[in-house]
């Protein structure tokens, strides 16, 4: 799995340190590599639309409890007061519920966009927001292909609001609130590898129930949140025009050209400056003749 530049740099740094310090750090690197991203598998066929996930999420993050219910034809969006919502879609296989929240991409556009590392892909997998670093530029919102980060426009001390997969709970060894409390077991928490495996197993076991796709397996370079459902993603309001390459890859070419420009251009400019020095003296005559 390709990781973003930052992780690459870190690995590079670690490799460098290893060369200097020898064995002990080498062991640490091995340990670090063995950590797998956590993710969440959401199964539309099990969801009953009870909104327990929404209520739990609101409780954990001190947000107001939901006041409206999923309804066909109404698109409920996440916003600065709710990190996750469940929507009801009318499909070819009847009415289907879909939960939405941050997708926790493997290579998140928001984290690559963030110039202060306030948006941060943790080694556990959740993409979190760190207020002490954020300057509120909202470039994460511009970049996120899923439109996940929300901004408190009406606060003098605004925060970016998004699902953080209950990162604090994960660090304590607990599951995210929604996965812990889902009465229908539609939300499963685990490592991403296990979840993809589980999703494949479910589809293979009941091919007539499931549509054959795992949303998030490849979209935007793969996401931590993966979905299975009765119908194809296009019927459930998912974005289907997303590229399978990660979004940070789009600006990689530009960023990689920066060091070369920085080294080569000044040399070129200095060279031109030196070779054209003589022009200075002949200039005025040339102007007259133009």
């Amino acid at each position, binding site marked *: 799995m390709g990781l973003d530049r930052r992780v690459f740099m870190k690995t590079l740094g670690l490799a460098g340190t290893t060369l200097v310090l020898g064995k002990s750090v080498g062991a640490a690197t091995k340990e670090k590599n063995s950590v797998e991203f956590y993710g969440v598998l959401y199964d539309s066929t099990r969801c009953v639309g009870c909104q327990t996930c929404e209520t739990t999420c609101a409780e954990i993050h001190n947000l107001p409890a939901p006041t409206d219910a999923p309804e066909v034809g109404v698109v409920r969006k996440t916003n600065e007061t709710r990190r996750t919502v469940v929507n009801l879609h009318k499909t070819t296989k009847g009415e289907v519920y879909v939960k939405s929240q941050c997708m926790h991409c493997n290579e998140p556009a928001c984290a690559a966009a963030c110039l202060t590392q306030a948006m941060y892909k943790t080694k556990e997998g959740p993409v979190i927001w760190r207020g002490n670093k954020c300057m509120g530029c909202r470039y994460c919102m511009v*970049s996120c292909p899923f439109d996940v980060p929300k901004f408190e426009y009406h606060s003098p001390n605004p925060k970016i609001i998004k699902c953080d997969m209950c990162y604090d709970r994960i660090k304590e060894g607990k599951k995210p609130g929604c996965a812990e409390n889902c009465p229908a077991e539609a939300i499963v928490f685990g490592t991403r590898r296990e979840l993809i495996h589980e999703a494949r197993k479910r589809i293979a076991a009941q091919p007539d129930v499931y549509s054959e796709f795992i949303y998030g397996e490849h979209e935007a370079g793969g996401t931590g949140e993966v979905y299975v459902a009765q119908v194809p993603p296009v019927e459930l309001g998912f974005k289907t025009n997303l590229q399978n390459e990660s979004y940070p890859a*789009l600006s990689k070419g530009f960023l990689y050209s920066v060091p070369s420009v920085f080294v080569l251009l000044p040399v070129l400019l200095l060279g031109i400056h030196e070779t054209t020095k003589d022009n200075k003296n002949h200039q005025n005559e040339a102007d007259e003749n133009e």
Partner: protein
Amino acid sequence: MKTSNFEYPIAKDNDGKSIWKFLIHEFKPKGKILTPFNVISVPVIMLGTLIIIYRFIHGIGAVTNLTQEVPWGLWIGFDVVTGVAFAGGAYVLTFIVYILNNQKYHSIVRITVLNGFLAYVFYAGALLLDLGRPWNVINPIIGNSFGTSSVLFLVAWHFLLYMLAQLIEFSPAVAEWLGARRARKILSGMTIAAVIFGITLSTLHQSGLGALYLMAKDKIHPLWYSEFIPIMFLVSSIFAGLSMVIFEGSISHKVFFNQISEENHHAQDGIVRGLSRICAGAMFAYFFLQFLVFIHEKRWGLLNTPMGYWYLLEMLGFVLLPMLMFVYGYRRKSMNVIKTAAILTMVGVILNRLNVTVIGFRWEDTVRYVPSWMEIVVTLTVIFTEIWIFRWVIRRMPVLRDSPAWAKHQ
């Protein structure tokens, strides 16, 4: 109004003896107070200041029409992205004068660098208004959280460093104003280094402003999105900047008529013609690039739509047409044609930047972002304040008028 035979008080008083007296004298307004510009700009600036205060108390949403879907509006798309493109004249002219050693344009370097410097200070400064948590703005600078994978990180650093480079490029004029002879000598010696550094920074952040939008691939109308946005932004900043130089020059030569020497007045037409030729060249390269991208990405199908007509208007009406006018004006020595072409080009650049950042951004949404009147007033406040400072500096420092005699012999 004092004429070209201007006195330099501190220099006369033996380097800095009466500096306070001099500065107090200089801070008094010069020139007429009741000009049309003042009458319009003062109320706007006052209103804009109130709006800015209100914004810091009640949040960005209280004064702007920004939404969760459109987080960047007029303040970024126009003030920052377009404003910086117009400031591109400084790096192009310093390239011509200091790198190519073409002295023909020397007399307009200072005013262009001043214009560029102030544009960066004010338009990049306007960014602070748009930041939700501006107190954290130093984070990417002081090094506790370097987001090195971010294009915005690059742009932020380059803005900062480029302002410094431009300040160094302009600083001899300040030294001449203050009569600081030794300082002037030292600062002038740094010019070439600052110019080389400045051009490199400009190349990267002019294109970087375009690269900011690379990750918004699915949100920008395909006629304006391509992986070549950075190159388009860089090439168009050349003629955007030079058109601004032509436009600003035609105004400066009227408003600050007394400041400009006879010789430079005569040279102006030749300079404008030269610039129009460079503009035409850069615009041809740009138009050709756009055409290549258009063909390569097979965009014919998009043309026969409202956005397609809008695209054609931009490309034909505000790139191709002014390009031809620049060529025509250059050949026929028609200053009016060239000036009109410069204005059309500027409109075209505004259109292009807004099409990428605002108009073509989430063009499919049913509810579109339209800037609020308060966003527009704040934008005007930023522009007017910049012009005030610009005028203040020109009336005092040797920007348009010749340097004092002592400086020439250094």
